């Protein structure tokens, strides 16, 4: 077996027998991730070590690990930020959780809790916040994850663990802005029915809005209507988009659109005084054009939104459990992590890929 490279934080091991955990890590920006057994540094006072049950795969994992966002990324890199698991060990100062608790992790690793934005409640915008695999920390593509308790979430009773891990990123990413800007009688447009969009449809419908799904997949009409959409329309046909101009009080765009004309038509779906929400992130640092004349003449808000804050995330977990809102997932075995990643990278996931980590971890003696 090839010699695995060292890591600045974790002690690489020759085999899983001596390891605290086994990750699937990328060793360079191309190729498949490989198994990487490792030991943690000592657990910090406020850290929680979690046995991962399920990990969701999110497209931004690709953008990160392939170095598309930051070409200076250090390897080995272990992404993943949609985690459901069980507390295995706690630091001496941990008060919120105990061993055995069912918990979740989202993309944020740490918030300072003292800056103006944290105090206002928007910790995801924390000026000193770090994200799960910043500073080369390992994320959720692993049998374990170790995170400060302040960024660990309680998984509510009745939560479907096998389906729910993608909610920690995809779920809150659409739930938080919908909740922030909606009113119950609004008409809602969801642009792009993929991982984010198919959850947005469910939340929007459950919040009481009339939902139109804008998609290229007319053939999935029945399925999308079952999720809660009342109508379907094309997300790319400029003529039909023009016919929908100004009809939607709230528009949530989950896609990254390169075509200027289509992107403009999307902005124009927004009704006067309405809100156009952007959540999708592009592969690189590209610009988009604001249709400022339309925005000014109609008093539109074009709002960006980044995951959600702590309370919004916790609320989303509870709302999802109570209302049975989960993604449609394809589940893979732990050893098929590379296959899951590949499917997700190629955009073939219907709608999210999830890895059943716990089963392998337990069977292979990683729950020590």
């Amino acid at each position, binding site marked *: 077996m090839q010699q695995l490279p060292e890591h600045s934080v974790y002690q690489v091991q020759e085999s899983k027998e001596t390891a605290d955990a086994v990750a699937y890590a990328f060793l360079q920006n191309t190729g498949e991730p490989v198994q990487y057994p490792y030991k943690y540094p000592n657990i910090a006072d406020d850290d929680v070590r979690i046995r991962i049950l399920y990990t969701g795969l999110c497209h931004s994992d690709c953008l990160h690990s392939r170095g598309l966002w930051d070409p200076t990324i250090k390897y080995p890199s272990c992404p993943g930020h949609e985690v459901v698991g069980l507390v295995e060990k706690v630091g001496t100062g941990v008060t919120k959780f105990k061993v055995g608790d069912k918990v979740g992790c989202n993309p944020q690793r740490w918030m300072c809790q003292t800056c103006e934005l944290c105090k206002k409640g928007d910790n995801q915008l924390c000026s000193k916040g770090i994200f799960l695999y910043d500073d080369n920390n390992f994320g959720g593509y692993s049998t374990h994850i170790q995170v400060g308790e302040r960024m660990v979430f309680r998984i509510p009773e009745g939560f479907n663990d096998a389906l729910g891990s993608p909610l920690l990123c995809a779920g809150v990413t659409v739930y938080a802005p919908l909740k922030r800007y909606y009113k119950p009688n609004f008409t809602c447009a969801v642009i792009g029915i993929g991982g984010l969009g198919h959850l947005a449809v469910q939340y929007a419908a459950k919040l009481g809005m009339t939902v139109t799904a804008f998609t290229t997949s007319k053939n999935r009409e029945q399925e999308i209507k079952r999720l809660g959409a009342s109508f379907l329309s094309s997300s790319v046909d400029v003529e039909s988009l023009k016919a929908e101009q100004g009809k939607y009080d709230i528009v949530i765009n989950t896609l990254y659109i390169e075509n200027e004309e289509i992107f403009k038509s999307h902005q124009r779906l927004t009704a006067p005084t309405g809100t156009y929400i952007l959540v999708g992130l592009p592969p690189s640092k590209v610009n988009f054009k*604001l249709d*400022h004349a339309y925005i000014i003449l109609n008093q*539109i808000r074009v709002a960006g939104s980044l995951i959600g804050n702590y309370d919004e995330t916790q609320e989303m977990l509870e709302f999802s459990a109570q209302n049975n809102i989960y993604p449609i997932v394809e589940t893979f075995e732990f050893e098929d992590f590379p296959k899951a990643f590949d499917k997700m990278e190629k955009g073939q996931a219907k709608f999210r890929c999830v890895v059943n980590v716990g089963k392998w971890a337990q069977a292979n003696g990683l729950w020590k």
Partner: protein
Amino acid sequence: MATKEHSVYKLVPKEEAEGFAWSFEGPNTEAVLYPFKFPAIQAHEVRIQQTYFGLCYTDCHLVNQDWFPINYPSVPGHEILGHIVMKGDKVTQFQIGDLVGAGFIRDSCGKCKYCIQGNDQLCGQMGDEHFIPLPKFGGFATHVQFPAKWAFPIPNTLPQNLTPPLLCAGITVFAPLKRYFNPKKEVAIIGIGGLGHLAIKFSAALGMKTSAISTSADKEQEAKSYGAIDFIVSKDPQQMAKASGRFDIILNCAHASTVDEFIAQTNLLKNGGDFIMVGIPAVNKVELQLPFFQLVCRQISFIGSLVGSRQENYEMIAFANKHKIYPTCEEFQFENFKNAYDTLLNGRPKYRCVVKVGNASETLKQ
């Protein structure tokens, strides 16, 4: 003298005129005098004899077809002030002689969702009757006739020669400042011109910590005299860097001339902040581009605002009156309208052009 006749306003010999307008017969032309008769006044309308009127760059954009093609002849103008000289049968809220003002909006239906919510400036039901400056005659005239609904009573404590710009520039900045107001917010006003100088005054009077951002270092004293607590020169990268992420609200009263300048403006916004846009530049000028990343990861919003509702206008007038908030104006005589328009179009007025109508409607008959 005008040669092109408008379908609604009969072009007449000056001795028979009910009003005199300054009319544009094509884009990028000089205005010509248009003596006219009104169509019969409708039951819900008022006719105003103006004392003063204002000029706004939007009028230039309209006349020169910077945004969309228009019909000629065109008499724009939408900062109107004068006394009611005639009213339709159904007008009960005003008497002959009342001093009223009007702005960009001519009419609203009162029945649609937006009207009922209180956003009657956004009423989409009025077609050609929506806006004052076109296609009917607007404020560049001795007399104007329009629905009483959008006439605002003007208190006699407001100086008349300074009031007209409040009805467009004033409301344009006051409405969003009030809409997004919070006593703890830090506000930045970009651009100390026609809109910006009023915005600083309104924002400071509303009690928010207000800073002014300008390309001109020499406007600092002036900005502070309006109530700004801080002044940042946008061409100075150090000052801009120091102010990075400082403001909850940015009210943009000046167009960025490059994408980099626009991005530099947005850097001043706090994460989660609101960037308010009110001025519409010529369509093919600068595209407002922003990296997706900035918008999403910093969770910032771009928000448009269009003048204000009637309610917001009433509040603005009362607020300006109470706090003595007036624009700085350059005054012209009605007969020298061309100078006023040219100063606006090609010069840099300080800060709004106002035309004194006086007794022009009498003297021009001779």
